[in-house]
């Protein structure tokens, strides 16, 4: 935070010349929020990088101890404000585990639809921001444009556009509106058509490939050592998806692929998210088919007081493993709520991945890790 947190003593380059210390962020157009990177540069080449976080620290874990479980779901919207539904999901699952209840089937399907649609939103934004980071401004607008229909779907379901607060302990807060299924099907069709445009505009673009292929390689060993999760690991050749490996909710009923790429560079991380997006659309489609009328809330008491206990509940958020370590002491508020934020842990790799690349690559690598500072700093 303060200046002395990053070691600013002069580091010499290999020829013994003085290096330049570049302070990137916290006010910088493409550090995705208030991330600060201390870069030691030799010309444009990075010798050492040290991320500095905490500018957006809101004390979420402390606040959680003073809020009821219901209010904690509302709070969870703010962890990673791009994919609130996935955060809701994690909290709801964790509390349900402590309570020992399970949501009714319809609610579970609705949750999966929402979580996967939110994955689409997240990856759409990733597409936009990543393309923006390497300089293609138009893709950003396209990403936002295609996000809009999903946001509208969420709005029609939950009544809010960003902080949905839709999941409840034991179900979901509202049933789907009557035209939801129809609209979602239309959206899936629309999205698939748009994806072709994206591929021509960005994926196939020779400049884009030039900027991303071979940049920021993360090896399998690093993935394990740094506890990385989500698309980053899968782009490095490890088939690891909590939805499949440690399945939760009703994900085992769905037929979907876990895309895996071997390169581990920025392009593969980008490509993997694009492939994952298509799988998510597939899951939504299947879930819409399986949707049957029924209850949307399990029987839970009005004031939720789970028995004393603890649970570590893992979910696959679009950014990686979003897990909750929840300790209850039998009162209406959680005793301890620890969030294993995927972006927080994934960001650590930056110290290693950046060395040897250029300033322009910093942005590409940072973008390809896909962080949200709200989740990193909590």
């Amino acid at each position: 935070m303060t200046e002395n947190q990053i070691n600013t003593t002069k580091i010499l380059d290999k020829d013994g010349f003085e290096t330049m210390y570049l302070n990137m962020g916290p006010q910088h157009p493409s550090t995705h929020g208030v991330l600060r990177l201390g870069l030691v540069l030799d010309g444009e080449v990075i010798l050492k990088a040290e991320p500095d976080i905490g500018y957006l620290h809101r004390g979420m874990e402390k606040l959680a101890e003073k809020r009821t479980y219901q209010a904690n779901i509302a709070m969870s919207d703010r962890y990673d404000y791009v994919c609130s539904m996935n955060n809701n999901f994690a909290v709801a699952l964790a509390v349900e585990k402590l309570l020992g209840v399970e949501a009714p089937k319809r609610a579970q399907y609705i949750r999966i639809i929402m979580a996967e649609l939110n994955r689409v939103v997240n990856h759409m934004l990733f597409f936009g921001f990543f393309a923006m980071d390497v300089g293609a401004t138009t893709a950003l607008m396209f990403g936002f444009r295609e996000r809009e229909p999903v946001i509208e779907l969420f709005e029609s379901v939950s009544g809010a556009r960003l902080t949905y607060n839709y999941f409840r302990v034991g179900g979901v807060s509202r049933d789907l509106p009557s035209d939801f299924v129809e609209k979602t099907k239309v959206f899936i069709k629309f999205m698939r058509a748009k994806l072709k445009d994206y591929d021509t505009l960005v994926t196939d673009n020779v400049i884009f490939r030039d900027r991303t292929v071979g940049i920021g390689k993360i090896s399998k060993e690093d993935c394990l050592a740094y506890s990385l999760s989500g698309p980053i690991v899968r782009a490095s050749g490890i088939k690891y998806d909590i939805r499949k490996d440690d399945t939760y909710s009703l994900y085992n009923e769905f037929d979907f692929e876990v895309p895996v790429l071997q390169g581990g560079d920025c392009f593969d991380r980008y490509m993997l998210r694009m492939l994952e997006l298509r799988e998510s659309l597939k899951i939504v489609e299947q879930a819409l088919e399986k949707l049957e009328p029924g209850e949307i809330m399990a029987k839970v008491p009005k004031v939720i007081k789970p028995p004393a206990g603890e649970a570590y509940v893992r979910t696959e958020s679009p950014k990686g493993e979003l897990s909750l370590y929840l300790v209850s002491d039998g009162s209406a508020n959680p005793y301890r709520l620890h969030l294993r934020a995927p972006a927080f842990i994934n960001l650590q790799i930056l110290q290693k991945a950046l060395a040897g690349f250029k300033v322009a690559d910093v942005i590409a690598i940072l973008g390809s890790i896909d962080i949200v500072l709200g989740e990193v700093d909590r």
Partner: protein
Amino acid sequence: MVNYIKKIIKGAWSLIAGMGVTLKYYFTKPVTVQYPYERREIAPVWRGTLRQLCDVSGTEICDGCQICARICPVQCITMEAYKDPADNKRKTSSYIVDFGRCMFCGLCVESCPKKCLVHTTEYELVSYDRTGMVLGKDKLVRK
């Protein structure tokens, strides 16, 4: 050499194809909504500002049970209740919502036992200072 030229041609083609996409959208209709002049349709379940409903005769339904105030994660609802000696019912003498704090999570509306607290589809909350965001009963109760 052939491969090299092939690569160049492929690269050039990818650029031209990309330009085709932007040109296509140049001639399609923009999606912008010109906000103050045009407004998009708001979902009926929109979580906007709060309102208290009254029954058909125009009397307030709210009985000041404090549940909404207690469940609010940000403590933006305050109320004072008293027992009306006329009909021996609990009523509120004041009901204040600080919309500067409110995060529109909707927990109060969900928890209201009388179902008299509702969301409106209103989302434009502008005032010159913070006190303008604190709405009392005169604004909140809909006759």
